[in-house]
């Protein structure tokens, strides 16, 4: 077949590829000639923000990535952390924001598919998925469309593959109405000595293609994800890939089967930038070259050019490098699972990627020039102008209400706090029999199959705090995520992050980014937890309106004894209720202010990392020794909401009688969001020991009251301020989100 002649590389065509004149000149210098169109496309995706991390890399280098448990830090498909007994956990979180905004169902579905491949590419069977989702306000019909679409997409893909979606978080805020966030976390378990890397080693070794056929979908997805949205965004729908979870399931089983062999050299998922990034990254990591015959790539349609094949982001495809002579054996396994497969090339020693199409040379690029040749990018930063104004606000101007009943009901019914069961009931969260704590507690807890160990996982980020102070906000995200893991009985052993920000070419956004990364790094250093993988998503803005900085943090914690997990809900009437940690006058950025209709302002709650550490340590020890019945982190909605949730988020509903003694203003005491606080319940016999522990740990602790009755009663300094029927409160909390999900307008 004759291919059509290539169009000349005009300035307009180069600009359409997202390359600046300086970058094009750089390409000419590196090659000593003009690139052809396919090569231009390759530079375009490989030097895009999405693939090259050009804006973020200098900052990410500052993160602590090492530790005694770390087997693989950032730079591979996912991070790997040792959990003993010869096993390791493999995990990562990744964004699929832009595609999900354009096409919510497929965008979210392929986000799930992509991150799962990152995990099983390394030889680990995926055990759990979590999602961190951000939408605009649910009062907007378009937001409800996006919300329902994303949830349906995650449900369709994850359920079909048979990996349970066990948790996550969801927030609604107007700042996301033009740019939603879909961050998907996946964790798998592998043998620590059987981790596969994306390396094309061994000159002469064959390169195998396996999975779905290559089509024209998703061409330039990576470039699309590296630009802001505008009115023409709807036209980008064809750049969103279409997922096929059935093929993914076959691919998963086939890959894990072949990985039992000892002749698999390297493996890489074809994710963003498809065959291009897979081949360049694999060759680069091995310091070798690759030769590909594009005529051998299984294609979905006729007439595809070298350009189409190299830039396609068709899903569910992988590249394997196996030892010479094993190709037939490998392909037989893939065929047993009804997958398309072909030998498409081999490893070479010349450091070039060469590809031919229709028997003619189509690509001839030095690997290093493409992978490492991009112009260095040191984006200027500037402290945003808005900060002084918003941080100057204090709560003094705010009237203190007499009672807390009305506000408690409003908070429990707000979509950010209300029960998310209508969402997670659409996810299969039990398949494979490892989910020890079903969704709805502080963290997900899953057992490690075949062992007595379990893992607690939490994802978190309060972006309202990050907007007010990105450094403090990022620290708060790590602290809260760790606190959730600790409340479930896990000891944090590793962090992965997904950094969602606006346009990095805006110095104020870049400042937010820099501050958040510093905050994240500093806290991980103090807590001594390595950051082992991560993902950066920039250009999250529409028509110049950026989202709040949203550094989503996922923390993985280890439980050596799977029977020692803890849940957030009260277990029996008569148990005593206590609060570990101190409540201060922290109303800045709170959900309470949002409910009052106040603009987002104030200083976010101050975090003292040393106090946080002591609080967490004390709580973890109490859980490990079996001294407490429940533990629940105080976050959005403050102490009152945490207490109410402890009453009704479990299988049984309990009332509670609470007496607080404090001179903190009433609304801050009830609804303020001070960090480092955990609501616990325990039998009376444990009270003295817990008090003694608090004293030893130099941590504040107060007994607040008792579980029981049919009412939720709170008195402050002996003055009643909340008294409500607990079942009525539970109903408000349970029904709020379900109602939105059912609205069809």
């Amino acid at each position: 077949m004759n291919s059509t002649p290539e169009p000349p590389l005009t300035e307009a065509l180069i600009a359409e590829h997202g390359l600046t004149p300086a970058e094009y000149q750089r390409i000419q210098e590196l090659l000593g000639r003009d690139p052809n169109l396919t090569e231009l496309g390759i530079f375009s995706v490989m030097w895009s923000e999405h693939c090259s991390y050009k804006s973020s890399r200098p900052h990410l280098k500052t993160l602590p990535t090492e530790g005694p448990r770390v087997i693989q830090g950032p730079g591979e498909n996912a991070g790997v952390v040792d959990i003993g007994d010869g096993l390791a956990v493999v995990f990562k979180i990744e964004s699929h924001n832009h595609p999900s905004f354009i096409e919510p169902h497929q965008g979210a579905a392929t986000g799930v598919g992509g991150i799962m491949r990152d995990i099983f590419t390394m030889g680990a069977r995926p055990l759990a998925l979590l999602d961190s989702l951000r939408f605009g306000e649910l009062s907007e019909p378009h937001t409800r469309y996006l919300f329902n679409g994303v949830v349906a997409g995650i449900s369709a893909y994850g359920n079909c593959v048979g990996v349970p979606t066990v948790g996550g978080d969801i927030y609604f805020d107007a700042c996301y109405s033009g740019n939603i966030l879909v961050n998907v976390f996946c964790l798998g378990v592998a043998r620590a000595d059987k981790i596969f890397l994306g390396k094309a080693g061994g000159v002469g070794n064959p390169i195998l293609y396996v999975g779905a056929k290559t089509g024209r979908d998703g061409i330039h997805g990576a470039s699309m994800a590296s630009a802001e949205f505008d009115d023409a965004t709807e036209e980008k729908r064809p750049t969103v890939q279409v997922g096929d979870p059935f093929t993914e399931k076959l691919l998963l089983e086939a890959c894990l089967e072949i990985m039992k062999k000892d002749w698999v050299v390297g493996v890489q998922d074809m994710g963003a930038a498809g065959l291009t990034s897979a081949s360049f990254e694999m060759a680069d990591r091995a310091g070798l070259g690759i030769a590909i015959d594009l005529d051998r790539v299984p294609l979905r349609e006729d007439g595809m050019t070298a350009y189409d094949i190299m830039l396609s982001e068709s899903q569910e495809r992988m590249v394997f490098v196996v030892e010479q002579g094993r190709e037939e054996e490998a392909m037989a396994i893939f065929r047993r699972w009804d997958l398309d497969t072909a030998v498409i090339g081999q490893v070479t020693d010349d450091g070039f990627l060469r590809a031919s199409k229709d028997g003619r040379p189509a690509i001839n690029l030095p690997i290093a020039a493409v992978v490492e040749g991009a112009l260095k990018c040191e984006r200027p930063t500037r402290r945003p102008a808005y900060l002084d104004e918003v941080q100057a606000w204090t709560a003094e101007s705010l009237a203190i209400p007499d009672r807390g009943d009305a506000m408690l009901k409003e908070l429990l019914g707000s979509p950010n706090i209300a029960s998310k069961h209508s969402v997670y009931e659409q996810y299969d969260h039990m398949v494979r029999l490892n989910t020890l704590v079903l969704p709805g507690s502080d963290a997900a807890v899953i057992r490690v199959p075949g062992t007595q160990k379990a893992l607690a996982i939490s994802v978190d980020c309060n972006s309202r705090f990050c907007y007010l102070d990105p450094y403090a906000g990022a620290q708060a995200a790590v602290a809260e995520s760790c606190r959730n893991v600790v409340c479930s009985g896990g000891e944090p052993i590793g962090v992965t992050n997904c950094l969602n920000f606006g346009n990095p070419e805006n110095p104020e956004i870049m400042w937010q980014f820099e501050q958040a990364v510093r905050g994240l790094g500093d806290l991980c250093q103090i807590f001594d937890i390595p950051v082992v993988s991560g993902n950066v998503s920039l250009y999250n803005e529409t028509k110049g309106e950026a989202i709040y900085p949203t550094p989503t943090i996922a923390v993985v914690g280890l439980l050596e004894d799977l029977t020692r997990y803890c849940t957030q809900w009260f277990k029996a009437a008569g148990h005593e209720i206590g609060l570990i940690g101190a409540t201060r006058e922290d109303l800045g950025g709170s959900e309470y202010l949002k409910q009052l209709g106040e603009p987002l302002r104030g200083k976010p709650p101050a975090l003292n990392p040393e106090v946080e550490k002591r609080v967490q340590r004390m709580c973890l020890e109490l859980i490990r020794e079996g001294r407490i019945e429940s533990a629940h982190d105080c976050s959005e909605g403050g102490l009152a909401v945490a207490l109410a949730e402890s009453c009704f988020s479990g299988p049984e509903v309990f009332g509670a009688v609470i007496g607080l003694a404090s001179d903190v203003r009433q609304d801050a005491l009830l609804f303020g969001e001070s960090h480092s606080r955990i609501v616990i319940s325990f039998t009376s016999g444990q009270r003295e020991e817990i008090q003694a522990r608090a004293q030893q740990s130099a941590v504040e602790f107060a007994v607040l009251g008792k579980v029981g009755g049919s009412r939720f009663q709170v008195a402050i300094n002996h003055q009643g301020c909340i008294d409500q029927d607990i079942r009525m409160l539970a109903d408000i909390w349970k029904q709020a989100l379900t109602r939105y999900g059912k609205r069809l307008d």
Partner: protein
Amino acid sequence: MKCGVVVFPGSNCDHDSYHVLKHLYGQETHWIWHKDQVLEPFDLIVLPGGFSYGDYLRPGAIARFSPIMKSIIKYANAGGRVLGICNGFQILVESGLLPGALRRNASQKFICKYVHLRVESNQTPYTSRCEKNAVLKIPVAHAEGGYFVEPETLKALEDQDRIILRYSDAAGRSDATTNPNGSVGQIAGVANAEKNVLGMMPHPERCADPLWPDRDGRYIFDSLIHSS
């Protein structure tokens, strides 16, 4: 008891059933590959949950044409025990071993949660260790679980005591308010006339392990093992 768990492409609860039979109950358990033509003798065959062939076209519609299904139909017609769970139930219906069809849930959404089931009949090898009208708490996880049969067939099923499980509340009351998916008569599980084939949407294998707080699924497996 010699058990077989069929692996269709897209089965994803196969490991769970295998685990329960082999490791919890210590039964001899084998994998059965969907491409196999010949079936060795078994005391129980499980068609597991999942998304065989991606649930494309209709759940179970393609799996019924798998090479192994011919042998399984023959085996069932000869009195062999076949338990179809979730997608397995859908395959049993599509292959004609059980009557009716499974429609999309009334909510149009996938539902994963614990539900209550009232045992309508204990005259089957799958429920022999249950009291009649006992209530079991077992989770469902499906998008197409709305059981449908024509009124005449429904009557026949009732007359022949073939409705084995109905969705109910914790007290055993079963009506429209306890129906998670729009099944006619809140039907959660039906058997063939000889009671050797059972299809059920809920997943007993998900709550049989002593590790979980809820483990009513064990009644199904206890029944099977003790009636073999």
